[in-house]
């Protein structure tokens, strides 16, 4: 008889920090202590607090262990599982509340990281075993599909989704119900339901977490969509770089077949629906819907002009709907709890919750799901715990290479589709890359633009040539060769590309540059006119100087300098010849007196 469940995160984050070894060690230890019939190990999806992995929760007590290693396992088994004394040193304690209750065990949901969160799309991640359809069913799985097939008409389903106010979570923010209605209205012998699981934004991994932690919710939602638009076939386009997600999806599809929840005559209603997996090779452009469909068809992933929209002429020329993983993850909950329930969360035009992937200069990197309209301050400071090492928060990049940055001065804005769009940013898929005072904004713009240049498919000229020209200018600026008029040239190019590129990738590619110019023009100007990088990040612009007051004239730096740029006389201050200096920084590391500084 099972008396305790141990949940170990088997998401990609924790797997890479070693959760598999921890699981093996735990299994061996339980066998050794003959506890294998009393205690069950469950591998789950992502808990969200990836920074603290590998993560483990022991129920019924709900004790949350973080950074568990295989070496900790004997102690956990002996002390906690056998004698009932949780191992305090491994229990996750909120750093912010550490003083207040150093000795008390904080319940998971009370920690600052989870307190402000509301989990809808991630509801089952870290709660159930993603490889068990039974556990999914226990969490009301496939009940929504049953309800739709037996109690609702296809029209009612689309109407419910529309009334809930759900908008596409992949980036554009188009009302999902409307999309379904368009596809339902198209007349055709064949229609397709597609899931876009080609998550490509640097720093975004919310879709991966849903795929890995709750694959059945996606399958169920796609079947519901199939019923709503009159389709009997679905495709999940997932990137091959997500091996765990691919494996669990395949298991989930097989299990659903076995239970008759996919296939013919589901619930005896005569409704047929089947889902196939298609693996993408990881091209960013294949996340663009027309390129994605071209790729599924077996062709090179290049976008097509719209219209015709997929709802009219999509995959294999047939009407199709294409939604993002996170969008689908909300569907079953809307069906079960009603459109009003969903619409009660969020803001006037952005309903429900949104998952964000926090990354960059932030303490709690990981996944958070919060109601729309939550302020940026809550996300960064409360949930994310602020920047590490006491550094000052400078800006956050939302929407990846298609989005823009929000400066620290606007930290109190509510995060929803329309606020972000009005600022020239974008919700995008929900990546949030946090930057502190050490990050140079010109360099950030350069990074994202470099990504787009690499990933541009080359079909249209504005994107293929235009983004490269912009990158050339940014390289020039960061190397200290910027000149008057460069900012204006960047803006002109950016606006032309936005207006003329063929697909979403090109149209949004200039956004990171435009947003950084908008909010951090002074940094661009400092680079161009003063040949100075205010954040001290751009290597070519750094100036190393020796403070004559502090320099003892020991000659240590001069001896280490690889280009002999430092000269002087023993026991009197040395100087750096700026024309020879290659900014390697060796002198700073060598000086014992802290006399050399970088500006």
């Amino acid at each position, binding site marked *: *008889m*099972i*008396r*305790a*469940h141990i*949940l170990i995160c088997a998401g990609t984050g924790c797997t890479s920090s070693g959760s598999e070894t921890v699981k093996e060690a735990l299994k061996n230890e339980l066998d050794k202590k003959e506890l294998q019939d*009393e205690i069950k190990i469950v591998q789950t999806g992502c808990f969200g607090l990836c920074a603290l992995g590998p993560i483990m929760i022991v*129920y*019924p*007590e*709900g004790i949350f262990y973080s950074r568990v290693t295989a070496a900790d396992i004997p102690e956990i088994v002996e002390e906690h599982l*056998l*004698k*009932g*004394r949780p191992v305090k040193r491994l229990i996750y304690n909120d750093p912010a509340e550490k003083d207040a209750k150093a000795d008390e065990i904080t319940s998971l949901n009370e920690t600052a990281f989870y307190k402000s969160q509301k989990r809808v799309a991630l509801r089952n991640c870290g*709660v*159930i075993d993603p490889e068990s359809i*039974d*556990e999914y*069913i*226990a*969490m*009301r*799985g*496939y*009940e929504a599909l*049953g309800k739709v097939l*037996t109690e609702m008409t296809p029209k009612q389903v689309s109407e419910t989704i529309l009334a809930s106010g759900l908008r596409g979570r992949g980036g554009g923010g188009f009302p999902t119900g409307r999309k379904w209605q368009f596809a339902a209205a198209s007349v055709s012998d064949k229609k397709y339901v597609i899931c876009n699981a080609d998550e490509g934004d640097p720093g975004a991994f919310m879709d991966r977490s849903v795929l890995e932690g709750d694959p059945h919710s996606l399958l169920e939602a796609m079947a519901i969509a199939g019923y709503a638009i009159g389709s009997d076939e679905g495709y999940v386009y997932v990137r091959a770089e997500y091996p765990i997600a691919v494996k669990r999806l395949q298991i989930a599809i097989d299990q659903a077949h076995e*239970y*008759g*929840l996919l296939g013919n*005559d*589901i*619930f*005896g209603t005569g409704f047929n629906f089947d889902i196939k997996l298609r693996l993408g090779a990881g091209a960013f452009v294949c996340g663009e819907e027309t390129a994605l469909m071209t790729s599924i068809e077996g062709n090179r992933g290049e976008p097509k002009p719209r219209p015709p929209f997929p709802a009219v002429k999509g995959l294999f020329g047939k009407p199709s709907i294409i939604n993002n993983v996170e969008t689908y993850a909300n569907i079953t909950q809307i069906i079960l709890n009603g459109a009003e329930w969903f619409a009660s969360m969020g803001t006037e035009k952005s309903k429900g919750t949104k998952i964000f992937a926090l990354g960059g200069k932030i303490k709690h990197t990981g996944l958070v799901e919060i109601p729309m309209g939550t302020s940026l301050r809550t996300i960064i400071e409360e949930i994310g715990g602020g920047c590490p090492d006491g550094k000052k928060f400078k800006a956050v990049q939302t929407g990846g290479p298609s989005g823009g940055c929000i400066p620290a001065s606007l930290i109190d804005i509510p995060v929803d589709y329309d606020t972000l769009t009005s600022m020239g940013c974008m919700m995008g898929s929900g990546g949030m890359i946090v930057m502190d005072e050490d990050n140079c904004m010109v360099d950030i713009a350069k990074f994202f633009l470099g990504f787009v240049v690499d990933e541009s498919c080359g079909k249209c000229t504005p994107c293929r040539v235009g983004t490269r020209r912009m990158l050339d200018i940014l390289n020039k600026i960061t190397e200290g060769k910027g000149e008057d008029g460069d900012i204006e040239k960047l803006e002109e190019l950016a606006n032309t590309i936005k207006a003329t590129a063929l697909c979403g990738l090109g149209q949004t590619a200039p956004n990171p540059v435009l947003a950084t110019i908008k909010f951090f023009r002074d940094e661009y100007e400092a680079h161009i006119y003063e040949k100075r990088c205010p954040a001290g990040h751009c290597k070519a612009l750094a100036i190393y100087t020796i403070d004559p007051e502090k320099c003892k004239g020991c000659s240590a730096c001069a001896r280490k300098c690889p280009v002999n740029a430092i000269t002087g006389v023993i026991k009197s201050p040395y100087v750096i010849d700026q024309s020879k200096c290659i900014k390697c920084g060796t002198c700073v590391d060598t000086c014992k007196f802290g006399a050399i500084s970088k500006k």
Partner: protein
Amino acid sequence: MKSLEELAKIRERMLSKIALREGENDIRIVVGMATCGIAAGARPVLNTLVEEVALQGVADRATVSQTGCIGICQFEPVVEVFENGKEKVTYVKMTPEMAKRVVAEHIKGGKPVVEYTIGNAKI
């Protein structure tokens, strides 16, 4: 899957298995499982409690968990029952047979087994 009833059946069957993870049951049965408890035979008591809770169908209301030494080692195995809004009940010198009765009468029936409690047990 040919009907909603089938789905409901699977759900019913699984619910009891994952109820453990809800962690918010009204009743908590806590067994002292420190060295003293284990030496006095707390493990069979714990296992019986877990089994009985499932058998008697009260798994949705009660969870069984362990704790360390309560300090009354001479009375081990000690089992304490915590219920929202009620005084905790402490059972002492428990055996698997006594555990069965506690689940049946106290957890299911709502009436503590007075003669097993710390004040009344024949020690």
